[in-house]
Structure formats: C-alpha cells, structure tokens
C-alpha cells in the first residue's frame, strides 16, 4: 500500500512524540541500558555485594547459596504464577492457604491412606488445579473482582486445611517427596579436584556446562534469525560479552553448589519452571494474550481475545503451581501443618512487584519476579546471618518493596513527561 499521493511533507514537522530513544535509558559506552527494565537486576547485584561484605563472604559460601535456593523455592514457584496473574491485572491473596490445603491433601493421601507417592502427587496437582478453577470461575465468568474472590479463598482454604488435618500436623512424608524438597542430586560421576576450591561434583558441573551451552546456542540461534530478518541485533562483541557474563554467573553458582552437596532438586525443578514459563509468557500465543488482557481489557475483547478463558486458565495455573509449592513446603518440614503457607501470598505478591510488575497490569516478567523473590530471600538470609532481629528484617523488606514500586512509578512519570 504505497502512499505516494500522500502529502508527506505535511507531517514533516517535529514529531517529537515518536522520535528518539525511549526515555529512561542509560548510555554506557556502546551499551545502552534500559534502567527501568534492568534496574531490578542491578539492585539485586548491589544487594548481593552489600551482604557479602557485611557477612564477610558468608553469604556466598556453598552451603548458604544452597540454603537460599531451598528456603525460597516455594515462594519463587508462587511468584511465577503470581506474576502472570498480576500481568493480567488481577491478584491472588489465597495462595498461602492453597499451599496449606494442598500440602494437607498430599499428607493425608500419603500418610493416612498410604497412596503411592507418584499418584498422591498427581492427585494433589489436580486438587490445586480444581481450586484454581473454582476461583477462576467466580472471577472470570461470574465477574467478581479477584481481590474479593481470593480473599474469600484465603479463608475458605485455610478452613479446609484445618478440616482436612483435623487441626494437627500430619507427617512424615515418604523419602521421595522429602528428596524433592530438601535433597540433592547424587554424585553419579564422582568428584573432581578444583585446586584451592577443593572437591566438586562432576555431574553438577556437567549440568551447569550443558545449561550454559544450551543457553548460548539458543541465544545464537535467536540472534541469527533476527539478523536474517534484517532486525538490529547486538554487535558480536557485546553479544559474546553478555553470554560470557551469564555463563560466569551460572558457573559460579554451580561450582559453589557442587562443592557443597551437589544440585538441590528444587533448583532443577525451579530452573525448568522458570525456563518454561518465560517461554510461555514471551513466545506463546497464550502468554501474549495475558499481556493483552492486562494492558487494555476492552481492546482485548474487541480484538477477539477470549478474555474470560485467559483469566480462568491463569488462575487454574496458579492453583497448580501453589500445589507444587505446597508439596515442597510440606516435604521440607516433613509434615503438613495447619499454619503452613501463612503470608506466602504477600511474599509472592511482593516478589512480583519488586520484580517490575505494574499495579495496573500489562507489565512484568517471570525472570523479574524470580529476581524480586531472590532479593527478598537474600535480604532475609543476609540479615539473619548478621544477627538482625526479625522486626528489622520486616522493616527492610517493607522499605525495599515501597522503594521498588516508587522507582517504577518515578521512571514512568519521567518517561511520561518526555511525551509532551
């Protein structure tokens, strides 16, 4: 559709609102960094450095890294589901109670009824999905705000937990479940000496290398495909530098873990979930629709997107992820208790918002939410290492949450001021 007859010179005036770099960009040599998007990662790096110094390096000790991962795994899993819900413009206050009730269901099935653990886990996931479907129905098809439905759910499923458990903790869990929550990969291939670092597990190192190779190959293919379509890509040195930086980061963590007790199984699970859901959010049609619904609901409706079904399924998904978190949490304590998962919803929501989600919806990334969760995890862990009392930890977490969202609002306002 050429517009040769168009009086193009009419519009030749300063189109200031459509010109130039998006605001909020920092130029560092040849690298241009979007502060709003990378701010969270920079903040995470700074927090890690800060606590490494404050704890004389104890934060990055092999065992402590392992602890941070294992202790925060269930919050991180919840944060994955929560970010999708927040992107769609909703909220889920019930996840803590769903963690409790699904942990309780798993415990009752395995401990009281002796159901084999694989079947019991499957049933628990289905229960989680049904809980999500219940809430998704009221929200999507009945039209009650998610805040209300999940607030009710918070009470309902806590009550259900107490009923299922008969007001007492149930345990212990079979070994397989405990291994998933608390255990590590075996030393399948023996150990290797790493000089001054001592012995490390070959299998873990190998997995780390494979992960890096996979990441590099995938990034390379993406880059090649983009270049093939004539899109702009990072210049080769920058590209290599980015990959190398990521590789060093991954290997540093893996080496530390390999020196301790190999890879925690939950880390493997978490890595797969993060990878899968990142792809889902960015590349799948379903993921795109979540952003569309959250970005402008009415426009999504008029674009033929089945908004109700999208909302329904993200709540089903949240239920399933909450049941995974429920199993892991119960397995870690080796008992399903009536107070399990208390205030988890708040941690998951905080992780999503620290990780760059917008209150109005339409914005957010899975990796961002994970980083947000890790920021809180590192603060928790670091402060307890230096012996801070819990009220101070709470205080700091509250301030971090507020600061993160304030930063987001501030960058947005600056961006807005640029456009007339």
């Amino acid at each position, binding site marked *: 559709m*050429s517009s040769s007859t168009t009086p*193009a010179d009419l*519009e030749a005036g300063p189109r200031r609102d459509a010109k130039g770099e998006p605001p909020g960009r920092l130029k560092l040599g040849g690298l241009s960094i979007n502060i709003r998007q990378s701010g969270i990662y920079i903040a995470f790096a700074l927090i890690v450095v800060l606590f490494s110094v404050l704890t004389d390096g104890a934060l990055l000790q092999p065992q402590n890294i392992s602890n941070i991962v294992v202790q925060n795994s269930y919050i991180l899993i919840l944060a994955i589901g929560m970010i999708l819900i927040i992107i769609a413009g909703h909220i889920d206050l019930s996840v803590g109670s769903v963690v409790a009730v699904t942990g309780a269901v798993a415990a009752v099935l395995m401990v009281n009824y002796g159901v084999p653990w694989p079947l019991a886990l499957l049933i628990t996931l289905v229960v989680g999905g049904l809980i999500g479907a219940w809430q998704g129905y009221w929200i999507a098809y009945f039209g009650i705000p998610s805040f209300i439905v999940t607030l009710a759910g918070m009470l309902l499923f806590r009550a259900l937990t107490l009923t299922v458990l008969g007001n007492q903790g149930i345990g212990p869990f079979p070994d397989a479940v405990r291994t998933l929550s608390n255990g590590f990969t075996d030393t399948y291939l023996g150990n290797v000496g790493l000089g001054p670092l001592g012995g490390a597990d070959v299998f873990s190192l190998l997995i780390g290398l494979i992960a890096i190779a996979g990441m590099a190959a995938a990034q390379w293919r993406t880059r090649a495909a983009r270049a093939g379509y004539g899109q702009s890509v990072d210049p080769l040195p920058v590209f290599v530098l980015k990959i190398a930086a990521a590789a060093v980061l991954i290997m540093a963590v893996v080496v530390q873990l390999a020196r301790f007790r190999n890879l925690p199984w939950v880390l493997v699970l978490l890595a797969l979930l993060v990878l899968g859901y990142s792809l889902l959010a960015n590349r*799948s049609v379903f993921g795109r629709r979540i952003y569309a619904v959250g*970005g402008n609901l009415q*426009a999504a409706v*008029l674009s033929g997107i089945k908004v109700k079904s999208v909302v329904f399924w993200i709540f089903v998904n949240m239920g399933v992820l909450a049941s995974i978190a429920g199993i892991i949490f119960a397995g870690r304590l080796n008992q399903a208790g009536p107070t399990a998962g208390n205030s988890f919803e708040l941690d998951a929501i905080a992780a999503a918002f620290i990780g760059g989600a917008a209150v109005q919806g339409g*914005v957010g990334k899975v990796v961002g939410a994970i980083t947000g969760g890790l920021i809180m995890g590192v603060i928790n862990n670091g402060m307890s290492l230096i012996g801070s009392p819990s009220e101070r930890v709470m205080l700091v977490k509250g301030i971090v949450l507020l600061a993160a969202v304030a930063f987001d609002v501030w960058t947005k306002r600056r961006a807005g001021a640029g456009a*007339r």
Partner: protein
Amino acid sequence: MTDDILHMRGITKTFPGVRALHEVNLSVRRGEIHAICGENGAGKSTLMKVLSGVYPFGSYEGRIEFDGELCRFGGIKDSEDAGIVIIHQELALCPQLSIAENIFLGNERASRGLIDWNRTNHQAGELLRRVGLEESPVTQVADIGVGKQQLVEIAKALSKKVKLLILDEPTAALNDQDSAHLLDLLRGLRDEGITCVIISHKLNEIIDIADSITIIRDGQTIETLEMAGGQVTEDRIISGMVGRDLDHRFPPHEPNVGEEVLRIEDWTVHSPSQPDRRVVSGAGLTLRRGEIVGLAGLMGAGRTELAMSLFGRTYGVGISGRVYKDGREVHIRNVQDAVKLGIAYATEDRKRYGLNLIEDIKRNISSVSLGRLSRNGWVNENEEYRVADEFRRSMNIKAPSVQSVVGKLSGGNQQKVVLSKWIYTDPDVLILDEPTRGIDVGAKYEIYTIINQLADEGKAVLVISSELPELLGLCDRIYTLSQGRITGELPREEATQERLMYHMTMGQE
C-alpha cells in the same frame, strides 16, 4: 490602542529533547472570542497549559501579562485566582456527584466547615440558568449527557468569577445541536464581557464564532487573522495550519463497485442499561465490494451501537435480525466469529478500546491475528516483526521502529496502527468508526488514501463519521441513521450536507 486582556510574549517551552513552543506570541483583546488553530502536536495545548499554570512560572521562557499584570503562576490555583479558567477536552467532573456539588467542587459554599446546601443549590441553580441548562442542581452528573456536562463545566467556570475562559476542543464530543447551543452561549458570555480562547478542529465553527484567529504551526506563531471582514475561509485557515494550500482535502477516487458482500436486515438492538429501550430498531443496510459507504447520524442515533452489535455482539442486549455474508445467512455470536467471517471494526475511541497503549507497535498489530503468526501456540516473533515493519512502511507510521510503544505516538499514527491491525486480518468488510477523530489535517489525508486503497482492493468499507464533509468527500453512498432507524440512503451525487441533516433529524422532536 486596543485593550488587550492578555499578552504572551516569546513563550518558549522545552521538554527533555524537544522544543514544544518556540517564541510564541499571543495577544487577546478584552471581550473577544479568540480561536487558536493548528494541527495536532502544533503546541496549542502546551501553550494553554503554560497560560493556566499547569507548567509553572520558571519552567518556560518568555512573559505573560494578564489584565496588565505580569503573571507568575505556580499552579492552576494561581491562574484561577487571577480569573483564567481552562476547560479541558476530557471533562473533569465527578459523575457520582450532583451538578451543584461539581460546580462548587474545591470552592464549596460553606460556613464554619459545614456545607450550606441551600446556598449551594440556590447559587448552582442561578448559574445553570445563566448557561441555559434546564436541570435540577441536585441531578447526578452521570445522568446527563455530554453536551449538558460541558455546560456544567462552564457554569463551574462562571462560579469562579472568570475573566478569561479557555476551552480546549469544547465541541469535539457534541452533536450539532449541542454544539450550536454551546456556541450561542459563548456569544452570550462575550456580550457579558468574558473573553474566550477556544481551541477547535472544527473550522466551520471557528469561522462562525471567532473574532480573531491565531494559527500555530510546529510550536511557532504563524499569523493572527481578523475575522471582521468575513474574508477568511476554511481553506485559508488550513493553508496557514499546514503551511501550503490544500487544493483537495480528499484524494480523488474512482469507485469500482462489485457484488454484495454484507447485508443486514431488520437489525434491532436494546440498551444494556435499559433493556426495554431500543437503540437500533429494524435497521437494514447493504455493503458491496469496492464500495465506501457512509453512516451519518447525530450523537446518540445508534451508529456505534449498530456497528458494535454487529461486530460480535460487543454492545447491547436482545439483539435480533439477520446478517448475510456473501449472500449466506450467518450468525455472529462473538468477536472471533466476526473476525473469521472477515469483518473488522476499528473503534471510535482508539485509546480506550482500540490499542494496548503500553505495548509496542508490532504487538498491537499482531494482536488479532496471532494465529496466523504462530505454530502450535508458539509465536514466530521474527515473522511478527517483519509483518509489522511492512505495515510501518506501507502505512507510513512515523516511529523509529515497530518496537516503539504505541502510547507515545501521535493520534494519526495510532490510528494507522489500529488500521494495520485490522487490515492484517484480511477482512472483506471494514467498519471504521470515526476514523479521523482527533487527527490532524495531513494525517487525515493519509487515512483517506488508505480507505480508498482498501476499496480498490475489493473490500467493503463502512465509514461512521460525525463530520458530514468527510462523508461527502469520501463515500460512494451514505446511509442516515436517526433514533436507531435508517432514515435515508443517498448516492454520492445526490448527497449534500443539508439533505443529510434533513434525514438525520427525521423523527426528532
């Protein structure tokens, strides 16, 4: 020596990286109606924001003298104290409050901290009489129409002892009747000695009402025209606005009309809020390949309601009637059905209903047709980029790349994104609801060219517009709608503004 109420001298306002105003001068005589014309983005609104203190003193260069005094406004409050009131395009009323409460919002009639309701409602009543609005002061604002809300805004301004009233696109959302009433009111205010500055895209209204016109282009004052002699024509103003003569506001087009593609019969729609009220009743129309058909009607005639109820029942309840696509009866239950049948609907309110403003151009263009761009549920992002970039070029969307956020684009470019989105669905029928609303003259021409090309490709285009000259310049055939009924069907040759208006007001009391 003329008595000028306002002098703005050498106003320069820069935002990070852009200069929105450059050495702008504006003089307004006491007691006149002064119009400011310019394309979208020319700097009209920025200038008014400088004047009203939205951009405080110190954030711009130059000087403002109002009523003989140098102004140093720190905010809207200061300018209002001086007697300058601005009424924005988007009305700033609280829908759940009464008319009287809105009039005195922030300026309450109170004694010892308690609101004196008798005084509030009595004074509101007087103000309403002054603006000619026959409503009770205790009526909720949500219950009155946009035209009346505009009058409430003016009443609110009058309550503040206004000397200079600034109206930004006051008639953009009004039908002709309400517009005429508003313009009459402004004349009345002028006779009372209130000076008005009016920003409007409707040049015929400006010619009708203004005493002088200042034209702004690209952030600079171009000229001030005196209207007294009656010499100034619309084309004269347009040439000032665009910097060249526009011989033809509409691109030439030879229609090549083919067979029928869509027909609706006996189409009836009821209001969702009052299910017993018919919004569209027994309407029927036919669209043919390669034909541009207009739908004219006053505000509230049911134009958008007809279009949206047809487009997958996105409006209304109790919808009945028959739809034939390519001669076969079809049942459209939702938007997906409509898209599958090759029907596209570009909304009149692109910001609210048409675009995801926080996403980029490519994701907006692909949003309806992700199925075409994906395999097994996974989107081919490179293909998406390619398609979007093709549209960026062919539609002349002015943006650095298709990764630019849509919310930052100008109205014309946003509209091109909306059109791209629907054209990419490869429809047979495009319903374009107010396709040039809030778009400047140059971009309008581009949109008209696109519409002509769509028709040349054999698509049927239904254009809904409040601007009769636009329908007359663009369409091959025009239907008129009045109170939900099709009251006329005129081929291009027979249609005139007067005849259309006659049919559009049929059956109205």
